């Protein structure tokens, strides 16, 4: 298949692997920020192709995993209302709240639907004027433009039965939070290619400079990731700390200006709590006051819900790259995809789920 097969070539992969082994003289710890990259690394076994000292730790870039518990609870409360059609991307449905998840709300009679685009939710609102259609807007900068477009369209059409529960998060503040955490062991970052396709690479220069850390904007196919690792290790070995772009077939330095403009028009930067990590200032997007009428938290009066997360799982450490999923005592024992303790075991992009699914009971041995 075009644009897929050429990035999964076994011979080229072996050549990247060999080149890495040739240039690596000491141990390095790299973090891939995005859950999609984590998934590809584990699915294709890319970590098995790295030199012994090069360690990949998995970052917080799984939107499902970092959506805070109180936001899940708000979603569950809204979805359970009889007048509501609650629309969500598929992998949010299994994320556990305090006592239930969206699938259980559906089983109890809630109208919960999987959509593939926020615009589908807008169309649904047009078709069902007697129901309240709510879209659960989670994700990084990648999904923000489409979500902004949905709100923008709803405004243009004068829809009064469409609203959005917004839990958007931003990548650069999360990278900075990780670099500031006392136990940080990360020497270099693979930044998320699709986030940069939207936002460009400019926001990463100050980070690379201030923290003396190489940041390589990287794609999602096996060869992308191997090349990203090679570029990052090369910088480290040469004592450089620059922003480089591996994913140049998609990412332009300035990003997608039209998409950025749309985001700025509808959303504003807000402080955001990250599940398992905590509050990070200026790390999220919320609706601008001009679009407050589309804010589901306001419409359904759930804005005040505050929840403390009970201390059960260690996903916070996993999301910061401080431990591997298999280093958690609950992994594969008390915490499995059937009975997840935390969201990282649920989402297809969650590090724990990726380890469980592709390493299974052998995870411990191979890790």
């Amino acid at each position: 298949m075009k644009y897929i097969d050429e990035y999964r070539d076994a011979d080229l992969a072996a050549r990247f692997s060999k080149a890495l082994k040739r240039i690596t003289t000491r141990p390095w710890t790299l973090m891939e920020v995005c859950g999609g990259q984590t998934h590809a690394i584990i699915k294709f076994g890319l970590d098995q192709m790295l030199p012994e000292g090069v360690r990949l730790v998995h970052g917080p870039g799984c939107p499902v995993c970092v959506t805070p518990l109180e936001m899940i609870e708000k979603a569950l409360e809204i979805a359970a209302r009889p007048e509501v059609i609650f629309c969500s991307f598929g992998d949010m449905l299994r994320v556990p709240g305090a006592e239930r998840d969206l699938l259980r709300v559906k089983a109890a009679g809630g109208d919960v639907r999987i959509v593939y685009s926020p615009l589908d939710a807008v169309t649904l609102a047009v078709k069902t004027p007697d129901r309240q259609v709510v879209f659960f807007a989670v994700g990084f900068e990648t999904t923000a433009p489409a979500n902004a477009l949905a709100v923008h369209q709803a405004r243009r059409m004068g829809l009064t039965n469409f609203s959005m529960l917004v839990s958007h998060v931003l990548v650069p503040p999360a990278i900075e939070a990780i670099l500031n955490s006392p136990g940080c062991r990360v020497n270099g970052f693979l930044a998320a290619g699709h986030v940069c396709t939207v936002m460009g690479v400019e926001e990463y220069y100050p980070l690379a400079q201030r923290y003396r850390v190489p940041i390589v904007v990287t794609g999602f196919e096996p060869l992308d990731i191997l090349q990203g690792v090679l570029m990052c290790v090369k910088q480290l070995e040469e004592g450089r700390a620059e922003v480089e772009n591996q994913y140049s077939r998609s990412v332009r330095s300035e990003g997608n200006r039209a998409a950025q403009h749309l985001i700025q028009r509808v959303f504003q930067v807000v402080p955001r709590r990250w599940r398992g990590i905590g509050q990070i200032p200026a790390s999220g997007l919320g609706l601008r006051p001009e679009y407050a009428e589309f804010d589901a938290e306001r419409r359904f009066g759930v804005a005040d819900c505050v929840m403390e997360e009970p201390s059960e799982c260690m996903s916070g450490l996993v999301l910061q790259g401080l431990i591997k999923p298999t280093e958690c005592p609950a992994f594969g024992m008390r915490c499995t995809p059937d009975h997840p303790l935390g969201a990282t075991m649920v989402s297809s992009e969650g590090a724990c789920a990726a380890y469980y699914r592709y390493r299974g009971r052998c995870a411990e041995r191979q890790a």
Partner: protein
Amino acid sequence: MTDFSLSCPLPLTDQKTILMAHGGGGRMMQRLIEQLFAPAFRNPILDRRHDSAILSLDSAAPRLAFTTDSYVVQPLFFPGGNIGTLAVNGTVNDLAMGGARPLWLSAGFILEEGLPTETLQRVVLSMREAAEAAGVQIVTGDTKVVDRGKGDGIFINTAGIGVITHPLTLNPAQVRPGDAILLSGDIGRHGITIMTEREGLSFESAIESDCAPVVEPALSLIEAGIAVRCMRDLTRGGLASALVEIAETAGVTIRVREDDIPVRGDVRAACELLGFDPLYVANEGRFIAFVPAEEAERALQILRFHPLTAQAQRIGQVEAGEPGLVSLRSRVGANRVVDMLSGEQLPRIC
């Protein structure tokens, strides 16, 4: 940056209600069977846990295979078939996987008030055609009607009886180290067809369900004298779930190669887009056969002779190793574990 709080919510351990995942062909369904149905109905025939029950009245008469399945698909009609063709082929295939030649089916219909008669007619006619093609007769049936809103147009249950005319016993327990694993054709078409029809997704090329009776190719292996150990049709849960289930029951390790598993380009593209793994996508006319390694080539030739299984491939082998382990050699040359999913695959965010 404030202090990190390293915590997560409490688990949802008890399943107090039935969820969709309980019918998804993954771990949750397996657990429901193990914890509720199997202990409740326990008997030596059921305990063999194969697609069909194998029955015999006396040792002189040929053994019979008996199976049942219910069909609840939406939409009722899809490219490559409809709920009627599924209801016939699904049950017929379950019988064939036990090495039986299907003979008779029952058909039970649960109809929703308001269903156009013409719809029912079309379904029934295609059931007749499918039965003829598979060489079975529908010999008994039942009809019930439920209030509007309490059904999904048509639900169909079929049960089937087949006869076993050879001495082989086919089940996962027969699988042993060294056996070769054959796959009858490309995977993932049925699941992706239903998905695209249901969700109104459109792709450049039309994907058709693989819904078909696999009786002839499956039985021709046995008739040619191949010592088939086990066959399994790949329905819900796909190739991955079937491999894991057999590896667990047989207590063996299974190794397969991603490169050897045929997936059509358009199916792969749809899977990439939706975040699905074709290994877990449903099929309705595909099966795997475990055969002794020395007979694998001949078995492949026999399968490739039939149009339906012309693309059959040898995808891997059975090894002694860790019981229940399924390992896949990925396209870039590394290994990964293949596990059964908890429930159904859900499309991802980005």
